[in-house]
C-alpha cells in the first residue's frame, strides 16, 4: 500500500511539474497575473508530493517490505537502522528520487523565499526548474520506478554493498546531490534571464547565493567521498582520477568559475553573457555527472546495449536540456550587453583568468573521462586514460592559476598595476621559496612536484593572509584600529579569504600525502616490530569478534616513538554475513604532521602471523582541514547581508503583490 501511495504521489508530482513548467511561462510572456501566480503553489505542491513519495520509499525500507524490488536488492533485516535509510539512495532508482526531491526542494525554496524577485522572473525560473523535473519524473516512471513490486516476495533482502555501510558514504550522495542540484538554480535563473533578455546586477545577486550554497555542498560532498576512499580502500589513496570522481569534479571546476564570474557580473556589469553560459555549462556537467555514474556507461559502452531504454532516454534528455539551452543561448545571448570595461591587469582580469583556466581544466577532464567511451563507440579500439594522463594535463594548468590566485585579490577593479601587489607579496614569495627548497633538500629522492606544490600552498596561504592584513591595514594604523577593522569586514570578503586559504591548506596536504607517503608491506608475527618515519609499530596479534551484521578480525598494533607510547591501533577486516564480502577498516592515528595508518591483510601460516600494511601519510589531514575551511568560508559568505538586500524581513508577500 505504501509503495503504491509513493508511486501515485510520483505520478501526481509529474503532472504538477508539467503544469508548473507551462502555465507560468506562458503567463509571464502574456502578462497574465493569475497564470504567473500559479508558479508558487505548483512548486510547493510538487515538493510536497515528491517528499511524500520519498517518505514512502524510506518507510518501505524501514519496515523491510520485501515485496518491493528496490528493498529486496538493497536491504536486509539485519542492517543497522542508519544503513536501512542510506540504502534508499544507495541505488539507481532511489538516488534519482533523492535527486528530484532536492530539485523540487530548491524550487519550493524559491517559491517561498523569492518574494522579492520580479514576478515574471520568478515564474520563469520556477517553470525552467519544473522542466528539468519533468524529464526526471518521466525517466523514473518509465525506466526506473523505485516502487516496483515483486511476487512472490523473498524472505529477506540481498543487503547493501558492505562498502556502502559506512557513515562517510551514507551522507556522501545527499551532499553531492545538494551540490549538483543546487546548480540547477543557477541554470534556471540563466535560462529565465535569456528568455527575459536581460541580466543585471540584481540578477547576479540573486544567482550568487544559490551558486555559493551549491558549491559548498559539492565541495563537502567531494571531500567526504575522498575521505571515505582514504580510510576505507585500505592503502591511503584519496584521489584516483576515477571517472566517477571526475563526474563530480567537473561541475566543481565549472561551478568555481561561475562563482567568480557572477561576482564580476554583479559588481562590474560585464561578463554577463559568459556568466549565463557558465551557469548552463555547470548544470550540464552536473546532469552529465549524475547520468555518467548512474547509467553504468562508464564501465563499458555496452551497458547502453544491455539496457537501451535507460541509455537512450538519458541521451535524449541530455540532448534536449544541454542542446536546447545552448541553442537558446546562441539565439538570445548576444542581446546581453555589458557596459563595464577593464584592462587585462585588473581584478576583473584576474577573475577572467581564473575562469579561463577553470573551464579549460574542466574541458580537459571531460575529454579524458569520455575519450575511452567515445573512441570505443566510434570503433577506434580500447584505450585507458588514467591518473598519469590527468596529472600531466591538470597540474600544469593549476600551477599558473595558483600563482595568480594570490595576486588577484590585490588588484584594483578596472585597471591596476601588478608591481605594488608583488611588493606586498615579497614575504610570501620568500617563505614559499624557502619552504620549497627545504622540502626539496629533505626529500631528494621524492618527486620534485611535491616541493613545488608545498611552495605553492605556502605562497597562496600567506598571500591570503597578507591580503587580509593589508585590508585591515595591519601595522599601518594602530593595532586596535586594525582589529576593529577586522570585525567590520564584509562577510563576502571573509568568504574569499577563507576560500583561498582553505585551498592553500588543502594543497599543502596534497603535496605531503601525494609525494612523501612512506609505505611498508610485510608479514608480521605477534611481537614483530617495524620502523616507519621514526615510529615503531609493534604487532600485538589479531583477535576475532563480531559486529551487528559482520564478523571482524582486528589486528592490534602498539606505536611508540623514541620509546614513548604514542597510540594503539586496531586495524579491522570485516566479513559481511549476507554478501560474504570483506571490507577493510584502516586504523588511523591523525597528527598534524601526518597520519599513522595501519591495515591488516590475510593470515600467513599458523603462528598468528598476518600480512600488514603500514603507512605514514605526511600532512594528509591538512587536506580535509582545508576543505572544511573552504566550506566554512562559503557559508560565512552566504550570511553576508548583501546577499539579502532586497529580501526585507517584513512582508515578503506584500512585495510580491506590489510587484505583480
Amino acid at each position, binding site marked *: 500500500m505504501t509503495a503504491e501511495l509513493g508511486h501515485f504521489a510520483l505520478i501526481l508530482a509529474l503532472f504538477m511539474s508539467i503544469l508548473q513548467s507551462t502555465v507560468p511561462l506562458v503567463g509571464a510572456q502574456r502578462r497574465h497575473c493569475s497564470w504567473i501566480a500559479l508558479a508558487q503553489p505548483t512548486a510547493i505542491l510538487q515538493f510536497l508530493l515528491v517528499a511524500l513519495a520519498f517518505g514512502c520509499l524510506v518507510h518501505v525500507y524501514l519496515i523491510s517490505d520485501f515485496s518491493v524490488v528496490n528493498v529486496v536488492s538493497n536491504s536486509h533485516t539485519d542492517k543497522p537502522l542508519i544503513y536501512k535509510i542510506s540504502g534508499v539512495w544507495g541505488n539507481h532508482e532511489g538516488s534519482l528520487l533523492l535527486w528530484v526531491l532536492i530539485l523540487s526542494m530548491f524550487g519550493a525554496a524559491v517559491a517561498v523565499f523569492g518574494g522579492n524577485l520580479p514576478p515574471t522572473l520568478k515564474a520563469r525560473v520556477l517553470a525552467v526548474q519544473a522542466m528539468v523535473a519533468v524529464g526526471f519524473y518521466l525517466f523514473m516512471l518509465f525506466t526506473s520506478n523505485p516502487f516496483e513490486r515483486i511476487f512472490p516476495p523473498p524472505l529477506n533482502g540481498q543487503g547493501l554493498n558492505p562498502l556502502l555501510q559506512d557513515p562517510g558514504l551514507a551522507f556522501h550522495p545527499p551532499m553531492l546531490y545538494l551540490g549538483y542540484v543546487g546548480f540547477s538554480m543557477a541554470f534556471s535563473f540563466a535560462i529565465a534571464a535569456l528568455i527575459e533578455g536581460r541580466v543585471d546586477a540584481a540578477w547576479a545577486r540573486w544567482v550568487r547565493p544559490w551558486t555559493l550554497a551549491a558549491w559548498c555542498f559539492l565541495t563537502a560532498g567531494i571531500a567526504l567521498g575522498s575521505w571515505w576512499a582514504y580510510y576505507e580502500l585500505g592503502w591511503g*589513496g584519496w584521489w584516483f582520477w576515477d571517472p566517477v570522481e571526475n563526474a563530480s569534479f567537473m561541475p566543481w571546476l565549472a561551478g568555481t568559475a561561475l562563482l567568480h564570474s557572477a561576482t564580476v557580473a554583479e559588481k562590474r556589469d560585464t561578463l554577463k553573457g559568459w556568466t549565463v553560459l557558465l551557469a548552463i555549462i555547470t548544470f550540464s556537467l552536473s546532469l552529465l555527472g549524475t547520468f555518467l555514474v548512474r547509467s*553504468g556507461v562508464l564501465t563499458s559502452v555496452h551497458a547502453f546495449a544491455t539496457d537501451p531504454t535507460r541509455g537512450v532516454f538519458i541521451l535524449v534528455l541530455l540532448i534536449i536540456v544541454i542542446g536546447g539551452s545552448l541553442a537558446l543561448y546562441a539565439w538570445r545571448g548576444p542581446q546581453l550587453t555589458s557596459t563595464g570595461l577593464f584592462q*587585462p591587469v585588473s581584478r576583473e582580469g584576474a577573475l577572467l583568468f581564473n575562469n579561463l583556466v577553470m573551464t579549460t581544466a574542466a574541458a580537459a577532464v571531460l575529454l579524458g573521462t569520455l575519450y575511452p567511451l567515445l573512441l570505443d563507440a566510434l570503433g577506434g579500439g580500447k584505450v585507458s586514460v*588514467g*591518473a598519469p*594522463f590527468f596529472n600531466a594535463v591538470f597540474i600544469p594548468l593549476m600551477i599558473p592559476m595558483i600563482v595568480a590566485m594570490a595576486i588577484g585579490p590585490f588588484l584594483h577593479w578596472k585597471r591596476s598595476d601588478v608591481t605594488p601587489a608583488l611588493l606586498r607579496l615579497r614575504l610570501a614569495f620568500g617563505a614559499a621559496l624557502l619552504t620549497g627548497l627545504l622540502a626539496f633538500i629533505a626529500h631528494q629522492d621524492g618527486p620534485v612536484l611535491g616541493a613545488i606544490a608545498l611552495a605553492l600552498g605556502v605562497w597562496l596561504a600567506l598571500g591570503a593572509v597578507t591580503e587580509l592584513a593589508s585590508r585591515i591595514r595591519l601595522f599601518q594604523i594602530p593595532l586596535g584600529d586594525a582589529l576593529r577593522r577586522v570585525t567590520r569586514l564584509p562577510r563576502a570578503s571573509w568568504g574569499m579569504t577563507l576560500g583561498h586559504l582553505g585551498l592553500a591548506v588543502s594543497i599543502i596536504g596534497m603535496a605531503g600525502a601525494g609525494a612523501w607517503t612512506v609505505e611498508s608491506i610485510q608479514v608480521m608475527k605477534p611481537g614483530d616490530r617495524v620502523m616507519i618515519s621514526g615510529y615503531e609499530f609493534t604487532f600485538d596479534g589479531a583477535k576475532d569478534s563480531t559486529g551487528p551484521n559482520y564478523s571482524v578480525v582486528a589486528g592490534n598494533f602498539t606505536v611508540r616513538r623514541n620509546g614513548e607510547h604514542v597510540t594503539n591501533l586496531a586495524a579491522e577486516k570485516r566479513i559481511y554475513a549476507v554478501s560474504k*564480502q570483506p571490507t577493510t577498516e584502516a586504523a588511523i592515528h591523525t597528527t598534524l604532521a601526518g597520519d599513522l595508518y595501519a591495515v591488516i591483510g590475510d593470515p600467513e601460516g599458523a603462528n598468528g602471523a598476518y*600480512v600488514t600494511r603500514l603507512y605514514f601519510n605526511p600532512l594528509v589531514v591538512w587536506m580535509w582541514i582545508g576543505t572544511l575551511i573552504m566550506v566554512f568560508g562559503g557559508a560565512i559568505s552566504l550570511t553576508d547581508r548583501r546577499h539579502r538586500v532586497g529580501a526585507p524581513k517584513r512582508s515578503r508577500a506584500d512585495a510580491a503583490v*506590489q510587484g505583480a
Partner: protein
Amino acid sequence: MRYLILFLGLLVFASPVSAVDPSEMLSNSLMETRAREISKGLRCVVCQNQSIDDSDAALARDLRVLVRERLVAGDSDNEVVEYVVSRYGDFVLLKPPFKGATLVLWGGPVLFVLIAFFAGLGFYRRQRRGAPSKPAAVALSNTERARLNDLLDKDGS
C-alpha cells in the same frame, strides 16, 4: 558516487585491500621500487580504472609477478613496459601513448588552452575597439523605480 564503480568492481576483485603481497616482493629493494613505479602505470585490464599496483584481481597479481620477473631478468623499465604492451596492447597503459588514436586526447587540452587564450585576447580586443553599440544603461521604468525605492526603504539603509 564512487560506489557504483565499487559495486561493479567488486564483481571482479574480491577485496579492496591487499594488493601487493609480501610474497611477491623482490628482496632487492631498488628493483622492488622500480617494480612498484612500473606497476602504477599499468592497468589491471579486468578492473575499472585501477592500476595493477592497487588491484587485488588475480590477473593483476600475475602481471605484478611478470613485471618483477622481467626486472630480475635484467630488462630496463622501458623494456618491461614494452613487453607487457606487446602482450596486452596499449589498453594496459594508464597513460595512453601518443599516436593516431590518441591524437585528439593529447591534442585536445593544448587546443583548449589555445582557445582560452584567443578567447581572452579577442575579448580584450573587442573591448578596446570601443565596445560597439553599447547602449547606455536602460533607464528604469516607473514601476521598476517604485519597486526599487520600496525595496531600498524596506532594507532600512
